[in-house]
């Protein structure tokens, strides 16, 4: 393997056999560590209500945080969405509209509830589906619309609600990546008929595993509670949240304001360091929406000297575990069940332009400076690096 390409210290790049920049991986996953003492306090019942339990306590706090009447916790966002789709999809209609540029298992969830995914395009500004992109897919067989908040920022909530109302089709929001954000002065969580969130370890609130649904519809909340204990009408499954996962999430909730501050500091460091580096654009969101900055995304512009995927390969070799943003789109992968997809030009264009950068609990501010310095090095030495890549 060639070792002609050296960094300033005279060592070869990791992709060519040298030592990686970091000894341990720098991931994009949040992996927030709670205060262990807080977690143990919750676990041993010190902080529970005398007549309640940990899961109920978590549900009350989350409902309050999202300013909704109801919160129903389940063992994962995946199964929460499955139960929600079954509860709300219009009977005798089969299609559920969702974007192709999204969570890799979302179409599988639609299949599990016996419906057909109908993929819609995204809006280039938000990287999410919108009222306009969904409208093109609506037909007499549309059972439900899923508005999906992207990684950072949020989707066209008003447009999606408006289209749903116009056609009499229920709309729900997959808000896994917009836990903290605000829309029109309200916390995400009370829009559409219901919203879905995750308590997975990589998410803003780390509950080991878990998920929850927020809704102002009391009857829906009641139906979901029955479904999650295997007793509901239609599809139901025992998918209650284990109490120790609730304990973890509660400890995470207590730390949330501080976590947001830490995330913001990481984002600001990226912003500062990337300022002088042409070819990469840091994706920003209005501070009015109170972004959590849990995720940090850059766009690879036309004047960057590498493709998105080449950049990721070079970064990953250094233990900088940047990831391709929702890649590949679901319609670019083999799908083993029925689905519908028309042309998705925005999805196809975006598909190889965005990178999720390392952030979260395991990434320090100094790490970020090193990462951007490495990107700068790649840019300055692109001719020789590219010659060896080829």
């Amino acid at each position: 393997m060639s070792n002609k390409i050296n960094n300033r210290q005279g060592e070869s790049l990791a992709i060519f056999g040298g030592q990686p920049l970091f000894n341990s991986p720098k991931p994009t996953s949040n992996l927030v560590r709670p205060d262990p003492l807080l977690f143990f306090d919750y676990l041993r019942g010190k902080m529970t209500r005398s007549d309640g339990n940990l899961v109920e306590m978590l549900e009350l706090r989350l409902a309050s945080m999202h300013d909704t009447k109801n919160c129903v916790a389940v063992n994962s966002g995946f199964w929460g969405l499955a139960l929600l789709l079954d509860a709300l999809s219009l009977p005798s209609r089969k299609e559920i509209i969702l974007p192709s540029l999204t969570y890799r298992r979302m179409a599988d969830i639609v299949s599990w509830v016996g419906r057909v995914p109908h993929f819609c395009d995204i809006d280039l500004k938000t990287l999410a589906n919108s009222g306009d992109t969904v409208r093109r897919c609506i037909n007499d067989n549309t059972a439900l619309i899923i508005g999906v908040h992207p990684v950072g920022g949020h989707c066209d909530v008003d447009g999606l609600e408006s289209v749903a109302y116009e056609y009499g089709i229920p709309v729900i929001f997959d808000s896994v990546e917009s836990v903290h954000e605000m829309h029109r002065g309200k916390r995400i969580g009370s829009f559409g008929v219901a919203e879905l969130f995750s308590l997975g370890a990589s998410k803003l609130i780390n509950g080991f595993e878990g998920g929850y649904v927020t809704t102002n519809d009391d009857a829906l909340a009641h139906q979901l509670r029955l479904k999650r204990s295997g007793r509901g009408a239609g599809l139901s499954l025992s998918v209650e949240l284990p109490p120790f996962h609730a304990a973890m999430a509660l400890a995470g909730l207590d730390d949330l304001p501080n976590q947001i501050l830490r995330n913001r500091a990481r984002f600001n460091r990226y912003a500062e360091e990337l300022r002088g580096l042409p070819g990469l654009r840091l994706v920003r969101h209005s501070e009015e929406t109170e972004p959590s900055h849990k995720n940090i995304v850059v766009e690879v512009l036309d004047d960057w000297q590498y493709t998105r995927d080449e950049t990721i390969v070079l970064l990953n070799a250094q233990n900088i575990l940047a990831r391709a943003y929702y890649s590949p789109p679901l319609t670019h992968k083999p799908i083993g069940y029925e689905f519908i997809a028309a042309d998705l030009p925005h999805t196809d264009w975006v598909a190889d332009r965005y990178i999720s950068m390392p952030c979260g609990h395991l990434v320090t501010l100094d790490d970020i400076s090193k990462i951007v310095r490495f990107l700068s090095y790649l840019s300055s030495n692109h001719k020789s690096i590219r010659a060896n890549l080829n």
Partner: protein
Amino acid sequence: MNYFSDKESGYLSDEVRQYFMGIFNRQYYTESGPLVQELEKTLQKKLKIRNVVCVSNASIAWLMLLDQLFSKSFFFTPQNTSKQLKEAISWLGFPSIEYNKIKKIIPVINKVRKNGKVIFVRNNIDFQDSDGIHNEIAIDSNDTLIDTQFSDELLGANTRDIELSSCGVLSFDSFATDFGFGACIYTDDDDFSDVLRCMRSSGGIRRKVPVKRTVNGRMSEAQAAFVLLGLKKMFDSHHASNS
């Protein structure tokens, strides 16, 4: 007072604390973590079976197993079959009959056999029950037998003197644990084990194989911690009663 904790007194055992401090120090919370892998190896050894795939709960385990193995099959389940298996059969829309005495439905079984695949579900009662599957009906080579819910005593045995079927689900809710959440699918078929791992999550995959559809079936490190503690308690108790 529970073995590991007590809400009234605020007690939380040292063992629980140690396990969780290990998790927090490793910062590995889910996705086929070290405790999940340890649990899988422990059960493989105890059950003397090649593959154990730990999953978040028995309902999801059954969904995975049934979705991969069976289509257009008819299930015969004993009356005390687990709620989770019934949920999975219902979710997938498979036809099923619950029986009290299997010999009474032999004519139905024979009729179904002519038209499709028959699945017998065997649970821990069948190992002792003289009316159970082994004594009353000959399992045809085209039939399939799957196991569910081993009794605690079986796991405490030093030797496996019960012939396990080709695959099944063991629910940890049947253990004497305080927080028995979770299940595993076991199988001697390596290829099928790879399918289950690829279906379950992106962690713990030994070989990537195509699957029709995936689930979130991940068992967290927290779940594995409690099940390992429960198993240890059960094995220690068996050892004490045998010595």
